[in-house]
């Protein structure tokens, strides 16, 4: 018993079965979890490459625990029992040795009779020893398991036999018998194992799960002995009668010849048994289930097994055609529709879907009260491009209870979008309401437990693209405002503003916009406060617009006007003074030495920047041009004030505003109007920094590997260890013509104090002057 537990996993019941991988590999509209009960959920189809074996999890292992708890009258420590039976790590006992647990913890404070406690301890401790023989610990990289030799196995079996004879508790006696069968099998004594089974389980009519666990071993022996029919029939029985051995029985029921199939069929006592054979074969991986569905229907009529098989077959077609990871899954579907009139990729699939539809029709007309078949019929009609017929089927199905109604409505929604290139305002309102209701996405997160909502949204995105409405297409494709903030562009921001400012929106447009803007209000609350919500969206868009305008020094006044039109909460304090320079770049204000007595907010700084620019232009003031250069350098990707012109800064790739052209232009003016050589040298050095960043921008635009020309690639302390690469890096900058200002500094300002400081503090410049 204990040993058998050790090879199973602790149950998560049905939750652990079936397609538990959250990253679906295909868009799944015909959701088996919505349409079918849980019992056979391990047979639901999944295309996950690692979980594509159904019954991949050991199921219902709680059943054994329940039997033990009943035997112990719930008088033992539950957590300890879990660890003892399963061998798994538990919260209370961690990986404490199980023999110690049995002796010292399991029965602590229990009110069980001492004789029962002692008997249970004897059994559990012996079961631990049996693990060495029957379930030896297996290091996956050990060629051979660490198990008992024949002599040790013989001694162990003698102990089990003796304990079995002496045991008084029937519950434990059965378990000893099971251990005996199992141990004899693993000790290569199959004949004795079968005899032991017959002696202890063969005559009685025990329905305890342990009898079926023992039968599982006997069936395995029969298979090895060539008694295939008998063996498979036993596996069939175990599958039916013993949920906690379904996993094992399912995989053991692996018939590979007509003779074995017939031999097993002949042993079946009832149509149900025969139908189960068809269910098992039809649900096997790589099988097409239709033929077995037809046979099972002939034997049993409508049944959960049939519905499970049909769901599998439909999901297979989804898997082959609704690829979740394809670049253009929806485009492919429309292209299939145009090419062959169905949503399916090829004639073979269309043909098979047609056969499934005929079968679904039969079930539908014979079982009109079963909503499953109405939905299966409608969905297969949908897949085969018969949209009107599918709609008719859905309409005729009447009002369905949840969750069937969700499948019905999502199919209807998909058909509507497939049929129409554009929608009326009323249709758009209805689509929005349906999306929220069907998928329970009240906050328009556009990401739910399942991916069928994403499918509908992708269809809508396709239609919007078709109509040339790329903004709305982006909304449906789950783009968010953060994408725009990361790399804003005037046309996109203007289009967004125009969209927000429209006098009327359909519900669908609002839903899409709400998601794009990251609004997490409930849909109803959002609509009740619509005017204010739209105004807030407009402010967000205007902030992006103003930030974008700032990147052009000629549009500072426009930017300032927009910033000042925003509510006060949009303004924020700036750390440090963006007018200050530093020899070495420092990005994160908290790490930079930005001590300053000046305190700006964004608005006050932009105002100041506009003033300085006006003065510089009126007076040709080198100082003011230099300050402007510093500000534009510091507000770029390469400076600590990047938040003034960017919403986000990537630490691994250039993004946002990384163009140092404005800064360089200001530094050039600062050099031109410099009142003295020290000022000119300082401006020249900063011009060199801006120029180097323009080289990185050029390389980025040429799609060079980011790593090759990454601004932060060579830390001062590191370049010596990568000297060859470093030399090439420096030469590439120079050869591309982006060292003009280092050269100018070297040639024209060698005698300045600033030159000496630059040599001391800037290794790039030091390298340039000494080695290039």
């Amino acid at each position, binding site marked *: 018993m204990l040993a058998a537990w050790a090879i199973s996993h602790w149950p998560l019941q049905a939750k652990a079965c079936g397609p538990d991988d959250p990253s679906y590999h295909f868009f799944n509209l015909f959701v088996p979890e919505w349409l079918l009960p849980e019992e056979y959920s391990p047979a639901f189809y999944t295309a996950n490459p690692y979980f594509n074996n159904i019954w991949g999890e050991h199921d219902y292992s709680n059943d054994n625990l329940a039997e033990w708890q009943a035997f112990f009258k719930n008088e033992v420590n539950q957590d300890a029992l879990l660890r003892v039976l399963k061998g798994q790590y538990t919260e209370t006992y961690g990986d404490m040795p199980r023999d110690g647990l049995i002796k010292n913890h399991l029965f602590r404070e229990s009110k069980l009779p001492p004789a029962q406690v002692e008997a249970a301890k004897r059994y559990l401790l012996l079961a631990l020893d049996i693990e060495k023989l029957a379930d030896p610990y297996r290091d996956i*990289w050990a060629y051979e398991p660490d198990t008992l030799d024949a002599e040790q196995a013989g001694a162990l079996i003698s102990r089990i036999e003796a304990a079995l004879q002496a045991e008084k508790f029937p519950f434990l006696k059965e378990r000893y018998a099971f251990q005996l069968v199992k141990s004899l099998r693993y000790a290569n004594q199959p004949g004795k194992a079968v005899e032991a089974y017959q002696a202890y389980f063969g005559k009685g009519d025990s329905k305890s799960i342990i009898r079926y666990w023992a039968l599982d071993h006997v069936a395995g022996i029969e298979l090895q002995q060539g008694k295939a029919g008998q063996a498979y029939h036993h596996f069939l029985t175990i599958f039916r009668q013993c949920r906690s051995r379904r996993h094992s029985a399912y995989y053991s029921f692996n*018939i590979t010849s*007509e003779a074995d199939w017939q031999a097993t069929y002949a042993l079946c006592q009832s149509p149900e048994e025969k139908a189960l054979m068809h269910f098992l074969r039809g649900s096997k991986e790589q099988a097409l289930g239709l*033929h077995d569905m037809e046979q099972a229907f002939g034997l049993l009529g409508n049944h959960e097994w049939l519905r499970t098989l049909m769901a599998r077959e439909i999901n297979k077609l989804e898997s082959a055609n609704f690829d979740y990871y394809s670049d253009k899954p929806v485009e492919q579907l429309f292209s299939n529709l145009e090419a062959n009139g169905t949503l399916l990729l090829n004639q073979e699939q269309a043909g098979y879907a047609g056969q499934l539809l005929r079968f679904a029709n039969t079930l539908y007309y014979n079982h009109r009260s079963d909503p499953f078949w109405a939905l299966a019929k409608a969905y297969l009609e949908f897949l085969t491009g018969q949209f009107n017929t599918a709609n008719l089927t859905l309409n005729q199905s009447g009002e369905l209870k949840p969750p069937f109604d969700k499948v019905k409505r999502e199919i209807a929604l998909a058909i509507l979008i497939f049929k129409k290139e554009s929608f009326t305002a009323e249709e758009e309102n209805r689509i929005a309401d349906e999306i929220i209701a069907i998928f329970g996405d009240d906050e328009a997160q556009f990401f739910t437990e399942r991916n069928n909502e994403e499918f509908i949204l992708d269809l809508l995105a396709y239609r919007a693209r078709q109509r040339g409405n790329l903004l709305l297409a982006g909304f449906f494709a789950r783009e968010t405002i953060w994408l725009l903030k990361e790399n804003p562009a005037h046309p996109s921001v203007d289009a967004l503003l125009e969209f927000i400012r429209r006098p009327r929106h359909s519900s669908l447009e609002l839903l899409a916009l709400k998601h794009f803007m990251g609004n997490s209000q409930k849909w109803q609350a959002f609509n009740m406060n619509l005017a204010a919500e739209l105004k807030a969206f407009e402010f967000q868009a205007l902030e992006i617009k103003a930030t974008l305008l700032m990147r052009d020094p000629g549009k500072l006044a426009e930017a300032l006007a927009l910033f000042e039109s925003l509510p006060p909460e949009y303004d924020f304090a700036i750390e440090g003074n963006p007018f200050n320079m530093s020899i070495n770049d420092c990005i994160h204000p908290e790490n930079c030495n930005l001590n300053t007595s000046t305190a700006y907010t964004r608005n006050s700084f932009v105002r100041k920047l506009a003033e300085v620019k006006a003065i510089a232009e009126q007076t040709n003031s080198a100082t003011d041009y230099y300050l402007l250069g510093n500000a534009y350098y510091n507000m770029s990707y390469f400076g600590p004030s990047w938040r003034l012109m960017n919403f986000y800064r990537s630490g691994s790739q250039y993004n946002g505003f990384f163009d140092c052209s404005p800064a360089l232009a200001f530094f050039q003016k600062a050099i031109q109007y410099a009142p003295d050589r020290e000022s000119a040298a300082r401006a020249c050095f900063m011009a060199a920094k801006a120029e180097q960043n323009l080289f990185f921008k050029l390389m980025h635009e040429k799609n060079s590997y980011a790593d090759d020309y990454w601004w932060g690639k060579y830390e001062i302390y590191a370049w010596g260890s990568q000297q060859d690469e470093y030399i090439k890096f420096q030469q590439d900058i120079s050869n591309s013509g982006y060292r003009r200002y280092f050269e100018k500094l070297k040639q024209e300002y060698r005698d300045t104090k600033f030159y000496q400081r630059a040599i001391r503090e800037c290794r790039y410049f030091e390298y340039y002057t000494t080695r290039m």
Partner: protein
Amino acid sequence: MRLWGLALLLLALAGCRQQQSESQVGFYFWKSNFKLNEAEQRALDTLGVARLFVKFLDVDVGADGRAFPKASVRFEGEAVGRYEAVPCVFITNRTFQSPSVSPAGLAESVWDYLQQINKRYGLRPAEYQFDCDWTPATRGPYFDFLRHIRRLSGGAVLSATIRLHQYRYPQQTGLPPVDKGALMYYNMGDISDKAETNSILNNEKGLPYLQAASYPLPLDVALPLFSWALLYRLGELQSIINIAQEAVLEQEPNLEKIGPGLYEVKQNFYFEAFYLNAGDRLRFESPAPEELERAADALHKIQNRSGNLIFYHLDEQALQNFPPDFLHRLARRLGD
């Protein structure tokens, strides 16, 4: 009929003396249960085969991303002791895609596993071969793995399988850090393509890859002897069924021949342990003798051949598909 064919082959082989100019013939043994039947053993002896390239294990990754061994070899009988066994390890490409797999750790695990097998059966291999269809993304970790194996191997010869595109474009695909390669002149078509004619050996596709006259490593050459039927269901490849002769398909009443090597399933039935469905299609593929000869002539021109010819793979029924003395003739064509 089959026994008669094999007898003829063996008689013919027995009549031949190995020529100095012949390539040394070896065989891959790719099944997990190493057992030679009498006919296979006689064929090996007659061909003068000294070396068998035996797949010791596959390495793959599980759902947890960790590498694990599977399909490990089990030796039955004493036959292996009569040959020089070259342990082969097939490693799936996705193993090296897993971020949880460290090349150094995997090398240690694989090497230790190989030594456990060697110890269990008293083997002392002088060469080890690694088989991985590496890609640009996995080249780094795979080659790292081989370098670590080199450190552990204590002077044993290391070889690696080389696919045709890797032979043709060593600059782009990289050169594995081993002592020699085994050029796999087979599996050159797209088996998933239902319009493919012969994915095992198709000289129209394969020969252009041999334009390069040499490769930076000494090369053994591997040629196919195997056959299979590819099973297509709903227009997509479903399974590979190992069958040696097309006659098996021709004689099956549940199959209808619809073209050269092409069959359609008329009704559901069990076939070679597979449950086939009505509408399934089967395509039989095998290397034609004349195509093998063409291939041998082209491979002969490779300058840095090691002189070894390896057939994939040892199977009594596959041997019967070829005329008597045919394998000798191939070896002679490849010899100098």
